[in-house]
């Protein structure tokens, strides 16, 4: 099993991070250019998590660490695995960057 992981720290307490993430998912799905991927899938009216996981961890009272992981179901010997790992990592970085901007903008 291959797992791609990316982490960033946001200036919000861990108690609020889960709610902010839910709001972020709703916000992403509501976008006109929304495209389903590992983390965000349109399931009727609700956004659900796909093969990825999000994990929140306390850094301090006012800050928390957000870790996004996705499982890649390709065997290591497959020539497509390397490029897919790179692409999944880039998508993870993009997702978390957007989440960071979302939190910083105070949309939630």
């Amino acid at each position, binding site marked *: 099993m291959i797992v791609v*992981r990316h982490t960033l720290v946001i200036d919000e307490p861990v108690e609020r991070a889960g709610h902010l993430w839910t709001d972020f998912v709703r916000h992403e799905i509501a976008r006109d250019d929304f495209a389903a991927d590992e983390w965000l899938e349109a399931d009727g009216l609700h956004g659900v998590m796909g093969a990825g996981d999000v994990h929140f961890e306390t850094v301090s009272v006012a800050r928390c660490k957000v870790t996004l992981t996705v499982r890649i179901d390709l065997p*290591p010997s497959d*020539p497509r695995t390397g490029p897919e*790992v790179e692409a999944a*990592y880039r998508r993870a970085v993009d997702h978390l960057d957007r989440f960071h901007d979302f939190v910083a903008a105070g949309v939630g």
Partner: protein
Amino acid sequence: MEENVNAAQGDNAEVRRGIAGVVRAGGDATVRQAMTVVTTARGGATVQQAASMAVVSGGDTSIKMAGAMCVPTLGDVSIEQGGAQWVVSAGDVNIDKGGCGVAVAPSVRVDRGGVGAALAWRVDVGEGGRVLFGPLAAAAFGLALGVGFGIVTVATAGYAATKVVKRLPRIPFIS
């Protein structure tokens, strides 16, 4: 050069700022700012700002700002700002700001580093981590195998040649 460092059963061994051939510890082995050929420990092994050809341990192995060629261990392996050519571990392998040619373990986690070929049930690629897959991994595996075999062959041949030359005292240019 210290030829060998032996510690009794259950005792720890430490080599600090020196060169040693074989370090054997009944407990933990620590090599700091030193070079050793082989480091073996029944417990854990720590190689810090040092180099060792082989680090064999029955516990956890930590390689910090250090290098090793072959690291077979029964515990976890942690490589921080260091490198190893071969890591074969019964526990997890964690690489942070380091590199490894081939890692064979149940789980391999890479942050800010690279692994040529990871043979593991779980390969975790984190920030700045790079693991080769597919044909590139096969090439890295072959390269590591070739280089390792070459180094062992050269070392063995050198040792054998030294022994042979020592048995020829009449050759004038050998003192």
